[in-house]
């Protein structure tokens, strides 16, 4: 009996309110993501790295592979 009334209570949630909460959550997540990206963008700028556009492909493109090779020179 108590289980049944509990279930009935749970199904009486106002659907509009539930949807709004979900939207609020999405907005909150979006705000958080945007805030984090802005913070990273500003940290990059203060480190002298301008990454507003991708760097055009150059001979340096293989540098990520070269990181391991560079470390290996200390073995």
């Amino acid at each position, binding site marked *: 009996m108590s289980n049944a009334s509990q279930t009935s209570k749970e199904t009486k949630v106002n659907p509009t309110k539930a949807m709004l909460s979900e939207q609020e959550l999405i907005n909150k*997540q979006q705000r*958080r*993501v945007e805030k*984090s*990206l802005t913070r*990273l963008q500003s*940290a*990059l700028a*203060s*480190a*002298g*790295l301008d*990454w507003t*556009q*991708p*760097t055009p492909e150059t001979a*340096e*493109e293989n*540098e*990520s592979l*070269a*990181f*391991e*090779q*560079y*470390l*290996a020179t*200390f*073995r």
Partner: protein
Amino acid sequence: MNITLPPTIPALRRELAQGNLDYATVVTHQREQFQRLGKQLKAVTHYLPVDVNHGFDKNSPLSGVGLAHKDIFDLSGRPPGLGRRQNLGDTTTPTSTASAIKALDQAGALNLGTLTMAEDACAATGQTAHLPTALNPLGEHLAVGGSSSGSAVAVAAGMVYGSLGTDTAGSVRIPAMTCGVMGLKTTHGLISNQGVAPLSASLDSVGALARSVQDLSCLFGAVTQDRPVEADTARLRTAFWLDGVSLDDNIRTVVEPILSGFGSASLDLSAHEHRATTLQQIVMISEIGLHHRKRIFSGQACRQVIDLGTVGLAAPEHWLNEALRIRRRCAQAFIEDAFASADVLVLPLQVASLPGTDEVYTGAKNFEPSKLLALHRYCGWLNYLGLPALALPVGVDGQGLPVSIQLVAKPFHEHHLLALGQKMQQDLLGENGIAPVCHIQE
């Protein structure tokens, strides 16, 4: 079984070899202690069977030595638990054991069990949503750092001689620091990540925790299968970085006299640290997003993975490529600058006194995000640069709680860290390092 175990692995091996202790007694005692303290401290996720009758093999360097590891490693027939409530079906049952664990098995070590960890190795504390959170043996009110939380607890309490963990942004060094033990993060790529669940593959490093530098050296030697390289500490040049570092006064007063005692040269590494920290964050969040994308969108990922991974997925695509592309240049610039006149750098690790669970566990009444961030303030940049680092307790603060720093060496120069760490341990802590401690009531 009432015996007192020798304080270090070399001492245990000596006692076994000389016949002062017998193998079956030692193994049974370690197993019982592991089970008893494991329950008390909520540090174990799975107990593994141990063969008491196996016998002592004096040719195996870790024969009779009880270890247990972070629940992130494949074991043949058992997928890692990863601090999750249950296997969500994205891990398959492994047919072989992770190569790092296999190396320890081959060296004769006893693998007593798997240890609790922050879910998916993605947190600076050991707080877990679905499993019991491990208790800090130094005091129940104190937080346990993550993500290798169970490893630090097990080592500090004397449940095991040592434990393997992983470090992506401090996940070996932070728990070591909060439990007052030693933690070694190894050079990027030195120890194979085969059979280790990834968080951020470009940054993950297998590492080890122990109560003494001798024990770390034993584990390190067994996993890398290298003969230990001796380093003459008298010839090791040191440099330190303290100017402009944000340390609370009660930490600075402990650390400064120690550094000046070494007569080290002072460096300013702020610019390197700032740049590498930013790039580490970009690599980490991007790789978390890519690796856990499916779990993030299905809502199965933990809160931290969702929070970090969604930012990573929303970040401009070229950021990850750029961060990896200039990694060599950053590492080279740092090494040429910082190691020009030093072999080992003495760097900040701990910013403030060890925090309470009520300050850094999310949802706690006095939760302060700044105290949580302080736990990993000076960790992640070294993962981006790929360098080895040793977290080392060097004293106590006004409350009698441990204070730790980190030593950093050039790539693949762990022997420099272990040599200087050994000397500092001898001078500051005593020959055997840290004694096991457990202030938690049964």
